[in-house]
């Protein structure tokens, strides 16, 4: 009978908290959206599954060794931890709080105690340490994105870079919005949190995760989920804004065929971009450096094997671990918070403003060039979200005029948006990091 009781006490049903149950449901919803509705399935399947794993009661997959030790609360371990962390009481909650505030050296000491007592890091926590806390996974993915990106349309019409710049206004407007919410006392975001939330407006998953891991790791789960779900919703969010800001005549504008871009130009561009980053904004060097490296591998033509690995096998492997690591941040104690609601709301505002400012910038450029050269629809592609945003531009163009193919023209601002959001990320890291 004792054994039976022990089994019951260790079971998931006995231990599950309401928060964990709710988070498991959220994980299932993410899986549903990914599998049934095809919302960014490559990321939401691992994220949703990771979220479910992270909330399995007693398994502690998303927790560090110390958090697991505190959870099981053996008195002698707790008092040893309290001693190292410099708190008087061995109350689990106080110890946990002190652990989260502790400096790195204290952290290490506490981890040693927990490891000696036989506790270990959860699997997802280890994935998180290797993939995200180290900054490696988003950067490797960025290299793969670089290897997949064709800068041809951008090089044929470099002015479209301005559209990529204008669309980043969404990022900064959202920072102001988040700060405003804190000032009004509705939410409690620091300037670092605000910057990390704003980056959702860059519509670039790896950039958002990279910035969040540096500036606001405690918000990473919500930020990543918001970024990827809104990227999947681009075909729903953007068209109403684009229609509202353009006239039918503007949407009908046909653009000139793009000129041929030579191989030499394509090879020189990533090098040129790298030099500019090195000279002006070293803080963006990790992101744009890897991006340029990936692109150079693609274009130089002598390392096709490396380029092939970067854009296929490697990016797939890293995506699996990145998704699971993000999922680990969906544990109930970290995700269920009013702040998450705020982040989801601000994220969609960021997207909307970014789209609008891209379209407005394209309208302005069109006016300056005589009113019949640039279709304002391509402006919205400046938010990045490659290639979804460009496809949306193309679709709306075809709606206004069935002969009007904007896809290649929209790819220019689209990849410019990737560069723009990486630059914006570098600025954020520089100013508030």
């Amino acid at each position, binding site marked *: 009978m004792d054994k039976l009781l022990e089994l019951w006490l260790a079971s998931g049903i006995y231990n599950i908290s309401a928060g964990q149950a709710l988070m498991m449901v959220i994980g299932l919803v993410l899986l549903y959206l990914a599998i049934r509705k095809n919302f960014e399935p490559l990321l939401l399947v691992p994220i949703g599954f990771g979220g479910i794993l992270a909330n399995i009661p007693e398994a502690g997959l998303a927790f560090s060794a110390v958090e697991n030790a505190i959870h099981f609360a053996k008195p002698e371990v707790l008092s040893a931890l309290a001693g190292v962390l410099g708190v008087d009481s061995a109350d689990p909650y106080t110890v946990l709080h002190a652990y989260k505030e502790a400096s790195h050296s204290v952290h290490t000491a506490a981890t040693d105690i927990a490891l000696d007592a036989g506790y270990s890091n959860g699997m997802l926590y280890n994935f998180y340490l290797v993939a995200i806390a180290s900054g490696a996974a988003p950067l490797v993915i960025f290299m793969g994105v670089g290897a997949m990106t064709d800068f041809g349309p951008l*090089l044929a019409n*470099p*002015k479209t*870079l*301005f559209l*990529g*710049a204008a669309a*980043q*206004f969404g*990022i*900064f*407007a959202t*920072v*102001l919005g*988040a*700060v*405003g919410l*804190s*000032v009004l006392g509705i939410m409690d975001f*620091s*300037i670092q949190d*605000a*910057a990390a939330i704003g980056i959702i407006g860059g519509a670039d998953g790896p950039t958002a995760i990279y910035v969040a891991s540096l500036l606001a790791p405690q918000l990473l789960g919500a930020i990543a989920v918001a970024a990827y779900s809104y990227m999947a919703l681009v075909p729903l969010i953007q068209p109403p804004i684009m229609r509202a800001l353009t006239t039918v005549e503007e949407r009908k504008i046909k653009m000139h065929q793009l000129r*041929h*871009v*030579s*191989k*030499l*130009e394509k090879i*020189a*561009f990533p090098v*040129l*971009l790298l030099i*500019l980053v090195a000279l*002006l*904004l070293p803080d963006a060097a990790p992101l744009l450096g890897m991006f340029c490296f990936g692109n150079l591998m693609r274009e130089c033509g002598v390392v096709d094997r490396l380029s092939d690995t970067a854009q296929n096998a490697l990016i797939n492997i890293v995506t699996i671990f990145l998704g699971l690591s993000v999922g680990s941040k969906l544990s109930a104690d970290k995700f269920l918070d009013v702040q998450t609601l705020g982040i989801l709301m601000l994220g969609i505002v960021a997207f909307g403003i970014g789209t609008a400012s891209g379209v407005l910038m394209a309208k302005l450029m069109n006016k300056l060039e005589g009113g019949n050269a640039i279709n304002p629809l391509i402006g919205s592609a400046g938010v990045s979200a490659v290639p979804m945003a460009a496809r949306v531009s193309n679709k709306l163009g075809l709606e206004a005029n069935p002969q009007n193919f904007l896809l290649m023209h929209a790819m220019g601002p689209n990849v*410019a948006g990737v*560069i*723009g959001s990486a*630059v*914006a990320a570098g*600025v*954020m890291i520089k*100013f*508030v990091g």
Partner: protein
Amino acid sequence: MDNLLSEGLNLMVFGMGFVFVFLTLLVISTAVMSKLATKYAPAPAVKPVKARPTAAAQSASAATKNDELIAVMTAAVHKYRS
């Protein structure tokens, strides 16, 4: 609290300004680079020379393939009829 707001405003003005300055410089340097590239490495001139032999080779191989195909087909037709 006002401090936070001014920090946010600062971030917005400088951040947006910097993004524009950076991308403007990128536009200018890309345009210069493209000009230089097309001036010193006129790629299109090389293309037709290369294209001809490959096109000829392709049509040649296509011709032999056609011959083979016809031979196979006649053989098959003969067999079927007999």
